[in-house]
């Protein structure tokens, strides 16, 4: 008999904020690739992935479920649907002669959506950045801190953020968000 294997999220069963102003919820499983290289990687990746890695600091680009987030001048996070086929293989051959590093980190971190008119205020409870839309506009993406946890922060809409949290930090981050939301009422 084949044993049944069930994939569960580390966030299953953990309370997350759900108030009138803001709600947070786990995002679906996704494919995540960490890409490093010079700007020479941009064009081959655009062709093979459908989204060009942005060269603008703290920039992002997306199309459908796929996105490329700037992490540093030679580093990007590529997000794609969970069942992306042989995306590693496709990108590796597209990048054939270009010096690069490409690592599958799909299971390393989890995505959490933070949505609602109170989204920026909720994050501001633990994030040291100025999250006013003038200082951190729609489309901006960066690594930063949420209290003691490193997170990836991407503002998709004025009142919608995606955060990427290292798997082992997810219970801590969920707890921090939930406590902050209760404080803020």
């Amino acid at each position, binding site marked *: 008999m084949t044993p049944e294997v069930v994939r569960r999220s580390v966030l299953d069963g953990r309370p997350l904020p759900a108030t009138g102003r803001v709600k947070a919820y786990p995002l679906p499983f996704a494919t995540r690739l960490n890409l490093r290289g010079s700007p020479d990687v941009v064009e081959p990746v655009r062709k093979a992935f459908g989204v060009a890695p942005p060269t603008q600091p*703290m920039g992002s680009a997306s199309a459908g479920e796929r996105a490329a987030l700037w*992490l*540093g*001048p030679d*580093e990007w996070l590529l997000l794609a649907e969970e069942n992306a086929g042989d995306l590693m293989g496709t990108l590796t051959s597209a990048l054939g002669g270009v010096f690069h590093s490409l690592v599958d980190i799909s299971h390393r971190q989890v995505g959490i959506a933070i949505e609602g008119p109170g989204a920026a205020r909720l994050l501001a409870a633990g994030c*040291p950045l100025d999250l006013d839309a003038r200082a951190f506009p729609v489309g901006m993406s*960066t*690594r930063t*801190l949420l209290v003691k946890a490193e997170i990836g922060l991407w503002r998709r809409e004025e009142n919608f953020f995606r955060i990427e949290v290292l798997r082992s930090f997810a219970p801590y981050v969920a707890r921090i968000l939930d406590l902050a939301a209760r404080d803020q009422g």
Partner: protein
Amino acid sequence: MLLIHCPYCEMERPEVEFKYGGQAHLVREPQKATDEEWTDFLYFRDNTRGLHAERWRHAVGCGRFFNCLRDTVSDKIAATYKAGEPRPSSP
């Protein structure tokens, strides 16, 4: 908290995202160095009162090392610049 301009993010970012990395512009040349120069490189650093060129890393941001000209008396940062760029003339 200090706000530090990261030359790679091109933005002022909060101090908690950074790590201090010691004196900048040290040249490591073990093949050419005399014993005395090598000892200097390994063990001795300036103890500047005033403007000090030092390495910082935007650890919880872009992850890059860069250089910073900071006044060790006032803690005021005069300039930050990318790794590999020369120390700016003192303002």
